[in-house]
């Protein structure tokens, strides 16, 4: 009996240790990214720790090609987030609120881009652009990124708004509100946390994407592409400085959003309970 308990305790402890090691595995490279933003490398490559320094942080804009690439990436991300969030949210709404023929096929087409290697998606899109003689640049990058982001947005929005009480909309219409007012006062607040989550995901995916973007970028450089092009000449500290800054900003935005969406969902629970009382037979 006691030996079985010992075994169980041992199993539990080793499970914990394994999980902590897993977290360390995930965390270490991020820690390295931040740590090496404070390095002063001895050569052109920021690969080996030399000495602690604020050199990178005090001169973040030293390489204009890197700064411009980051600004370019942010522009792309804004455009992609706007387009993909709108298109994907509409798709997600259609999938949750309506029943229609071919729903299964549409659902499958939505999932399909997520089950394809990026290099295939990127290369096939490139062959299309080449065959219609469309020169690559800002627009083709946005087209490519929206293509895979739409699916992420639709799937995220669908998951977040499934099971909502759409009677609220009908109650509002019955009480004489116009459809526009109903959309603004009921539908939008209802779907907002899901849509914002999807938009944040899209923004992150856009900044993160390399393979599809690279294949369809022509001569334009996003932040990752600029790093890729630099890999044989120099890897400056500024790469880590920008990445650390983006990391801190992302964490701050995420914490703000989580706080907001917790408050929002509490409000919605109250609203739905109220409707239940009114509509209960």
């Amino acid at each position, binding site marked *: 009996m006691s030996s079985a308990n010992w075994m169980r305790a041992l199993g539990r402890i080793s*499970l914990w240790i*394994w*999980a902590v*090691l*897993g*977290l360390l*595995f*995930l*965390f270490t*490279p*991020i820690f*390295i990214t931040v740590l*090496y933003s404070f390095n002063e490398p001895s050569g052109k490559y920021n690969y*080996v720790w030399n000495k602690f320094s604020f050199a990178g942080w005090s001169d973040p804009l030293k390489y204009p090609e890197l700064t411009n690439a980051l600004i370019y990436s942010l522009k792309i991300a804004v455009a992609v987030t706007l387009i993909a969030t*709108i*298109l*994907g949210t*509409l798709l997600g*709404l*259609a999938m*949750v609120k*309506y*029943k*229609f023929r071919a729903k299964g096929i549409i659902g499958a*087409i*939505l999932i399909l*881009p*997520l*089950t394809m*290697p*990026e*290099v*295939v998606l990127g*290369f*096939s*899109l*490139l*062959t*299309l652009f*080449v065959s219609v003689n469309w020169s690559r640049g800002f627009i083709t990058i946005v*087209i490519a990124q929206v*293509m895979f982001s*739409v699916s992420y947005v639709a799937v995220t929005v669908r998951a977040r708004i499934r099971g909502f009480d*759409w*009677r609220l909309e*009908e109650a509002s219409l*019955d009480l004489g509100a116009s459809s526009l007012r109903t959309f603004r006062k009921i539908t939008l607040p209802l779907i907002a946390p899901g849509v914002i989550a999807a938009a944040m995901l899209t923004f*992150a995916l856009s900044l993160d994407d*390399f*393979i599809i973007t690279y294949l369809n970028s022509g001569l334009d450089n996003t932040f*990752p592409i600029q790093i*890729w092009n630099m*890999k044989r000449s120099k890897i400056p500290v500024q790469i*880590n400085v920008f*990445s650390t800054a*983006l990391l801190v900003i*992302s964490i701050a935005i*995420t914490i703000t959003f*989580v706080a907001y969406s917790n408050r929002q969902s509490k409000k919605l629970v109250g609203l739905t309970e109220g409707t239940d009382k009114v*509509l209960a037979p």
Partner: protein
Amino acid sequence: MTTAAAPSRFRRTHRESGTDDTSVPARRRFTPWLLIAPGGLWLLVFFIIPLVSLGVLSLEDGGISNYSNVISDNATVIIRTFIYATIATIAAIAIGYPLAYVIATKGGKYKNLLLALVVLPFFVTYLVRTLSWKILLFDGGPVVGVLQSIGILNENQSVLGSPFAVIAALTYNFLPFMVLPIYVSLEKIDWRLIDAAADLYSSPARAFRKITFRLSLPGLFAGTLLTFIPAAGDFVNSELLGSDRTVMIGNIIEKNFGKEFFRPELSALSFMLMAIILVGVIFYARILGTEEIV
């Protein structure tokens, strides 16, 4: 027909539509298509049509012999690609499943914090994450030092350039995609089932095998796809951390896409990569018996 429809519509709107969200008043039959049209057209023009034309292009000039040429020219690379992706996926399951299990069952009030740590890597762009692996694995770095001190590596051997470096980074880069779906399916489990199994004299190991593991299969399936597919199509890890010995299918496409777009062989190679993955996905779904989640 119209007289019958009117009262039933009234009844639905005011009583049942909350529980039966599938009911569709006739006037709204076109609304879903209006909502689908913009995103659907985007996917049709920029996803489906390019894939079809890639397939057509891959058969130009030589027809089906393009495929046999590509396979015989790149046999080693193709096999290597799928071996790397398979090992990386298995490693991701070995690391990710226990992690997801601990977060889902023992996380308590720290659950969200732990999940945030799992997603944290996504806040640093993919290429920079991979560069951090290069720092970690660099000659004279921590990993090489440990491996040399315990005698796995000789004094003058390095990790960079080896298959180990590429596979480790592939595992790392897609690990969150493994943890999250497994976590989601474990989170949904009604743990009273485990209590019931214990009451009925099942050993914890048996209860895990028969209940927990079975119910987590959809998550494991999704996680496997989300890890294996990007790993099989990757060229970044091999390029930044590998060498000539670690060339993958993606590297061949990356090296040639600029100069020889129209080479049907390159289209055949990417089409084949996709086809093998699709066949693998269907086969894997059969084995796990989780077809409904695809």
